[in-house]
């Protein structure tokens, strides 16, 4: 038994909620409490920093960072918390604060050095905690370092001359390939899964998809690259029966659809209604087609582990589409024809 984190066997047992004797005493929490514990951890970290800042000790920042990391390690090693949220927030905050303090102590540092150190802090936290979100974030952070390294003149929207976007796409493709390997440790598998989902979106951001003003010819390559990745992800997702490639496919298609606005010439409302209608039609058709299990595929819910959290999210999402409050009288002027919102933009 390694004391500093669960062994592979212990982590596997943790994932099937086995009795404590098999998990080596390690404990983890569900999705909803994990998120809440993470938020509480961030709040505690912020308050710890604020306290040491207010006492004006010369070593206050260092002390705050070390205390945060020490408490996180104590929770991990002594209380055997794994993926519980609070120890993750404390460790992450402590390491980032430490990195910020080092940067501050060195005085004049370049953007590349600053980004590298913060990325390294997030990466160390991710690897230490076996947290896929943090490891994926550190890889995205590394793409920032790549972008900062790139001479400004070569940061054009063309794929080949945009190393940060190319890097993200390359990592996404590599992750898709690495997804074929069978991993004993579930968290390693999840790290790959997060990369498959996050990196195409990061690639699109770097390739200038969101600035919207590049010349048409330079927009073709990113859209084409993402479309190709989408097809590959869909194929892999269906073949392997894995969710991350399917999510990556959806994200890529969204990016491609956004890019197509330059070529369709349609007004935005037509694209939104048309695109939404097509997706709705496809989803309804797929839901109906898979109402009976076909080759193992089904549209029914079969896994209840994260159902409660996603159901709550869905309710919040539906409520957010409702008309605005009656107190927002300035948004709705009853007598002058101003439309107070009908569940859409509310901006009439």
């Amino acid at each position, binding site marked *: 038994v390694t004391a500093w984190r669960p062994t592979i066997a212990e982590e596997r047992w943790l994932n099937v909620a086995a009795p404590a004797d098999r998990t080596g005493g390690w404990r983890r929490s569900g999705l909803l409490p994990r998120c809440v514990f993470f938020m509480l951890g961030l709040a505690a970290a912020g308050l710890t920093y604020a306290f040491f800042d207010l006492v004006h000790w010369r070593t206050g920042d260092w002390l705050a960072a070390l205390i945060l990391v020490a408490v996180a390690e104590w929770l991990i090693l002594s209380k055997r918390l794994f993926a519980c949220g609070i120890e993750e927030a404390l460790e992450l905050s402590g390491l980032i604060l430490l990195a910020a303090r080092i940067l501050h102590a060195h005085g004049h540092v370049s953007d590349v050095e600053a980004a590298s150190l913060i990325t390294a802090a997030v990466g160390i936290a991710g690897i230490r905690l076996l947290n896929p979100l943090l490891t994926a974030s550190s890889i995205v952070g590394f793409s920032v370092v790549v972008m900062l390294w790139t001479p400004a003149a070569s940061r054009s929207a063309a794929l080949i001359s945009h190393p940060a976007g190319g890097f993200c796409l390359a990592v996404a493709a590599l992750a898709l390939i690495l997804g074929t390997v069978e991993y004993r440790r579930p968290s390693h598998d999840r790290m790959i899964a997060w990369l498959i989902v996050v990196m195409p979106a990061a690639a699109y951001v770097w390739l200038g998809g969101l600035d919207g003003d590049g010349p048409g010819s330079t927009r073709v390559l990113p859209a084409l690259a993402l479309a190709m990745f989408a097809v590959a992800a869909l194929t892999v997702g269906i073949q392997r029966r894995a969710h991350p490639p399917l999510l990556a496919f959806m994200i890529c298609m969204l990016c491609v659809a956004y890019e197509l606005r330059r070529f369709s010439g349609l007004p935005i409302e037509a694209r939104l209604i048309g695109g939404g209608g097509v997706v709705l039609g496809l989803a309804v058709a797929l839901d109906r087609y898979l109402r009976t299990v076909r080759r193992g595929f089904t549209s029914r819910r079969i896994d209840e582990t994260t159902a409660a959290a996603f159901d709550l999210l869905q309710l919040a999402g539906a409520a957010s589409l409702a008309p605005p409050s009656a107190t927002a009288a300035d948004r709705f002027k*009853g007598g002058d024809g101003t439309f107070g919102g009908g569940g859409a933009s509310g901006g009439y």
Partner: protein
Amino acid sequence: MHSLESELRELHREGLIEDATAVRAIAIESRSLFSVFEELRLALYASVAAIIAGLGILLKRNLDRIGPLALILVLAAIAGACYAAGTRLRRDRSDSLASAYVVLLGALIISADLGFAEAQFHWLGADWARHLLLLAIVHGITAYAFESPLVMSLSLASLAGWVGVERAFGSLLLAGAATPASGGRALSCAALLLVWREVHRRLHGSRVLQDVLEHFAAHLGFWGALAWCAGSTRVIEGIVIVLTMATVLIRAGLRNEREAFVVYGVVYGAIATCILEGKIGGEPKLVVLLLLVTVVGAAIVLWNLHKRLRVRS
């Protein structure tokens, strides 16, 4: 890729999980059964949101060209078609995800249509906000007809809008917005929902819809009480209400093994305590220390309650 099939088989062999659960879990782990439920849900939500956003822009830009009456009638027809399609899909399969979202789309179009009609013709005059009450009733009836939690949440959001509750939680705590009136509106709405929930329960209504009522009542109640806490005239009443609600919800959450309510109780209780500590004021270092103790305390309490829930389940 990873598979926990061997672990599940071992647990099953030792009798720690039941046959049916084991068969299902092993099928999922071995990927002989694969559900695209969450992908479909995401796609359906995104498509409905896109259509509604597009519709909003369409209404705004083409009002003069098409004319209000034609638009209102066309929208009503589309909403009717959505309800008809939802009914058909639901007939095929009662738990159809597609049906739920097609009906939600219909309900959102009705919202847009009614709001637009009221803005054009001013049927309700100065009481224009009553169209939100009308929407709450229409969506409520639809929610019961389709047993749809999504449309129910739309109905409750419309009701809250009619009562005058701000949708953004943060805005209730802002200095200008945290008035006794805004808190009172949210608390009245929560009380109304609790009455509705009680009637629903006594009539043996759907458990899914009751859940929606309970979640909304809890949030609105806490928001209202926190607005009082953040204001200046009803701080004590606000604190008492938050702490009482937190206690009741935590106990109910533990009794019924519903972790979300335990989380609400602890988190909102901690927020109220933090607001109170901020109001007491004094030496900033001391206040920050008190806040830190509260946050750490909340985490410890939540951890212990979480442990109790896990032991029970």
